């Protein structure tokens, strides 16, 4: 396998070319999986014996919650890459992914609230995982506002990277502190090491939704990154050639 392909992804120009070719695949797979997964989950999956139909929001809640957290981890890895190897694309990824992370965190909280009303009898409880997600949302807001407060793009990216890394040190501490503080939420639905406790008819559509939402996330991030690249590299020849061709 030729690794030059991988190295090329680090340069904005090559990333722009390659991502342009990959983008349609992610868009098509993402939409296809999301449509299949939601119809399968909402119509064909069996009812829960306790919660009835209200459990079906899991097909939106779990994927968004997984992505909300893994988006922060991806940003943290990019922050490390940006600070150590000073790769431009890592900065661009953080800028593009932060608002999406905030959006998915909000969606996870919102769908959780909608699910909580029929099953727990309340929209919101000060429970460990809910509180940790709320703090995650605040962290995303901090990243976005620091990014937009500094005018110089290079400086803003570096400052944001430091903040993201500080945040990632703190995330496990916050998670466990609120867990010991107060908890009601059920444990994680999917674990890599164990078989899910649900029947396959129920978790298969969930898996489809999770993969679908990752594809969707990738597609939107690529779109946002391409815009950001055009904006940041607007003085280079290839961007001007691309725009005025």
């Amino acid at each position, binding site marked *: 396998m030729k690794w030059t392909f991988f190295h090329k992804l680090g340069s904005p120009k090559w990333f722009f070319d390659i991502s342009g070719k990959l983008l349609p695949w992610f868009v098509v797979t993402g939409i296809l999986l999301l449509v299949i997964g939601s119809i399968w989950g909402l119509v064909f999956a069996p009812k829960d014996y306790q919660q009835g139909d209200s459990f079906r929001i899991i097909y939106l809640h779990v994927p968004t919650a997984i992505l909300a957290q893994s988006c922060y981890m991806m940003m943290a890895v990019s922050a490390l890459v940006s600070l150590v190897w000073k790769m431009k694309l890592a900065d661009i990824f953080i800028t593009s992914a932060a608002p999406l992370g905030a959006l998915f965190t909000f969606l996870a909280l919102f769908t959780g609230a909608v699910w909580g009303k029929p099953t727990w009898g309340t929209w919101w409880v000060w429970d460990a995982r809910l509180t940790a997600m709320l703090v995650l949302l605040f*962290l995303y*807001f901090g990243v976005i506002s*620091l990014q937009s407060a500094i005018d110089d793009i290079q400086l803003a990216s570096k*400052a944001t990277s430091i903040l993201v890394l500080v945040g990632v040190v703190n995330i496990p501490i*916050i998670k466990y*502190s*609120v867990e010991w503080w107060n908890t009601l939420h059920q444990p994680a639905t999917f674990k890599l090491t164990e078989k899910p406790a649900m029947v396959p008819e129920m978790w298969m559509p969930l898996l489809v939704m999770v993969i679908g939402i990752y594809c969707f996330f990738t597609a939107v991030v690529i779109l946002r990154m391409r815009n950001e690249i055009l904006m940041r590299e607007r003085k280079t020849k290839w961007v001007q050639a691309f725009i005025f061709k």
Partner: protein
Amino acid sequence: MSQSVEYIGLGKVLKEVCLREYLCAFRHRQAFINPLVFFAIIIALFPLGVSPDPKFLSMASVGVVWVGALLSTMLSLDNLFMKDYEDGSLEQFVLSAQPLYLIMLAKSFVHWTLTGLPLIIISPLLAMMLYLDFEHLPALMLTLIMGTPVINLIGGIGAALTVSLRSSGVLVSLLVLPLTIPVLIFATGAVQASIDGASINGYIAILGMLLMLSITLAPFATSAAIKLSVSN
């Protein structure tokens, strides 16, 4: 080879940094008195706004004192680097032959003795005005002694990141407050355990861990952020 520049050792540099910090603080006394007054006002507002009932207040007192301490520390973060950034001494710190890490740690320590320590000293009085029982005051003081340095150190990162911005007040709080949640949880948890008659050792141990982690890690992030802000 002639050595025309006198080499200054680490100990002397740190001592000079601390002395200079105290001198600067003494000349801007008001900047350090204001957060204390702010702290007292928050605590006075609470019984007025919610309920003057002694039973309720004694239940809420720990949380109110701690949230007040958090907010007033946020207010004092502006003093930490702003003046040094404006008069260029921050650049001299960065250029210094001694590690920026230790200079930042010294600055944070001085800042804590000027903001955290007075706050700890007046907090028993304010806690008793909120009807916290006398016997639980030592637990509250202990959590404040261990928790406020953590907030100062984490706050230093936020202050360093935003020092080159013109209006950074709200932004610093937005960046720092989510990161201080564990301190708040374990500190209030410790005092609550003391009220319930349980042992507070576990909470104090975790607060100690947070303190050690922030002493060792936070100055790294602070000095990286300072280098960044100075290069602007």
